[in-house]
């Protein structure tokens, strides 16, 4: 028996209450700003075009089970990303951040916000610093997505872990961080603790359950949709939902040694009620929790090494097993090595990932590994060229089940990206 997931029928685009509240607060703050003379606006815009060659199956956005962003039928010229970001100071210690992007026209709206939040950043006192974020943003997990727009400066495609975060994990809520700034008081270390409380991520895990891991750089906009309506297995899944009135939480620790080493650990639990799947005829509810850890080491002569690890489980009610729950434990890890020389960066990454299937007759089981090699050439502050080769070898239960193909498949994608950026700080 195959446990088919429900496919969310088309629903009218909903701009969330939170998005409205944020937009209102943003506009009001701009108008009411008492000290506009000293206020600061930083903006950035970029256009990233791709030349793609791929032999992969159609991706999750195309209704397929491909493990890379572009399937073979998308070889040729593609839009990588068009982006506009704005940071507006609101008085002395508040600021607003908006990051809008267009990746393609496959979502409910061609343009969406990948992040939108208010940041409260009081001055450090006595060696301690507190920060509060409110809105929609990434939890502090990735160590490779450190460039603006949550992009990786090392590769085009993110690791399996960080691709998953890009596709269906976002904090829509509050995050507080308390840092002890040892490096500002004669020590070699900084230590920070982070706690978050969030909603609207009740669907986190729906893509893992149905498609497994992939390596992509498409970031689902806040309240966006994943997959195509009516296309199995994913349908038009919505990771950013809230209908069980249960908030999710996470807590993490970050230790930094000078500006050379960053160590992060985090426990995440969206605390969703998986049984609500049974009472809603439209949407998924996935109880997803995981632990993550990572380390980034930077050394002299442009060397960087990054390793991340992720281990968790997502649970939901099976459609055809009334009252029953199915679980998909998942695990992924990667190691990346990068060398910067002048305006060039050469990087290599190895990914490994697995999704097990419990109580669903094998549905959604997947395992695989991937190699990524990328060369980035920053011509100047505006122009950047990237050449990336990515190969994923994966075995997927659903590949045979839905498309009749062999479970094991090797997919290769080569991309040449040309990006032009401009903005208030890009000179």
């Amino acid at each position, binding site marked *: 028996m195959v446990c088919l997931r429900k496919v969310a029928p088309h629903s009218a685009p909903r701009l969330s209450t939170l998005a409205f509240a944020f937009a209102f607060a943003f506009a009001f703050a701009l108008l009411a700003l008492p000290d506009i003379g000293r206020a600061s606006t930083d903006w950035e815009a970029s256009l990233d075009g791709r030349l793609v060659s791929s032999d992969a199956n159609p991706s999750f956005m195309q209704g397929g089970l491909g493990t890379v962003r572009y399937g073979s039928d998308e070889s040729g010229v593609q839009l990588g990303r068009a982006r506009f970001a704005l940071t507006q100071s609101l008085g002395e210690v508040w600021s607003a951040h908006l990051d809008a992007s267009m990746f393609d026209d496959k979502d409910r709206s061609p343009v969406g916000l990948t992040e939108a939040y208010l940041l409260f950043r009081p001055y450090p006192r006595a060696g301690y610093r507190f920060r509060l974020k409110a809105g929609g943003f990434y939890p502090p997990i990735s160590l490779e997505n450190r460039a603006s727009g949550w992009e990786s400066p090392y590769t085009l495609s993110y690791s399996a872990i960080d691709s998953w975060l890009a596709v269906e994990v976002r904090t829509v809520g509050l995050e507080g961080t308390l840092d002890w700034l040892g490096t500002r008081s004669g020590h070699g270390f900084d230590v920070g603790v982070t706690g978050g409380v969030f909603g609207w991520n009740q669907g986190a895990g729906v893509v893992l359950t149905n498609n497994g891991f992939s390596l992509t750089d498409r970031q689902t906009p806040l309240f966006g949709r994943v997959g195509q309506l009516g296309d199995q297995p994913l349908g038009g899944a919505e990771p950013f939902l809230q209908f069980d009135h249960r908030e999710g939480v996470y807590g993490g620790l970050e230790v930094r040694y000078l500006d*050379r080493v960053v160590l992060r650990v985090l426990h995440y639990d969206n605390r969703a009620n998986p049984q609500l799947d049974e009472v809603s005829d439209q949407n998924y509810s996935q109880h997803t929790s995981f632990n993550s850890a990572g380390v980034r080491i930077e050394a002299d002569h442009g060397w960087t090494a990054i390793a991340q690890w992720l281990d968790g489980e997502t649970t939901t009610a099976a459609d055809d097993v009334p009252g029953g729950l199915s679980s998909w434990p998942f695990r992924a890890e990667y190691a990346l090595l990068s060398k910067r020389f002048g305006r060039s960066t050469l990087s290599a990454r190895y990914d490994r990932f697995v999704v097990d299937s419990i109580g669903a007759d094998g549905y959604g089981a997947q395992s695989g590994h991937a190699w990524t090699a990328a060369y980035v050439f920053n011509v100047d502050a505006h122009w950047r060229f990237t050449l990336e080769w990515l190969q994923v070898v994966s075995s997927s239960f659903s590949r045979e089940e839905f498309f009749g193909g062999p479970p094991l498949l090797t997919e290769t994608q080569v991309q040449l990206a040309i990006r032009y950026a401009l903005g208030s700080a890009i000179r």
Partner: protein
Amino acid sequence: MLLCAGQLAAAGAAVAATLVINARTTDGHALQGAVVTVRPLDGQVRHAAPLRGVVDQINRAFAPDLLIIPVGSTVEFPNSDFVSHQIYSFSPTKRFQLPLYRGKPYPPVHFDQPGVVTLGCNIHDDMLAYLVVTDAPWYGRTDSAGAWSTELPRGHYRVTLWHPRLRENDADLERELTVAESDRAELTLTLSKPLQPAPLTDRPHSWDY
């Protein structure tokens, strides 16, 4: 931190003498950029004249990243970047903050207590600089050969060596010496622990997550 080695060489006699300080790392290499201060211990009352210093912000970095100023000096913090900065210090020597700005909207900051002031930017965490506010009449930084020298009268002095990357920030290297019957005195100070690694300088500024 302990003083590991020091040597005093004297020859000849003069009213004014030359004091040469050599700073060495644990493995004997020249220590460049170390801060040297020399204070009289025999009743001489001398103060260096206050000055007007400037610490600019260029390419998301302080320039210079270390400035020595006499007590009573003022420092301007212009921002020459296209992005805004928000400068702060929570060092006990001088606590201050300059709200988000570009250009040069604020008057100079007055530093009236001796000590080290660590500067940071509340927007860009990797920006780091130091002000050494000193009450010593003679001060300076060692050159690429690890040397610094000054002219001073005969007398009894305390020589202090400090570097922002010392393993223990508050543990200065100190040594007392007498300059007498000499027109040239030389002292070598050697660290007992290796310095912390230098900040990475070639990282693109857009990497800030």
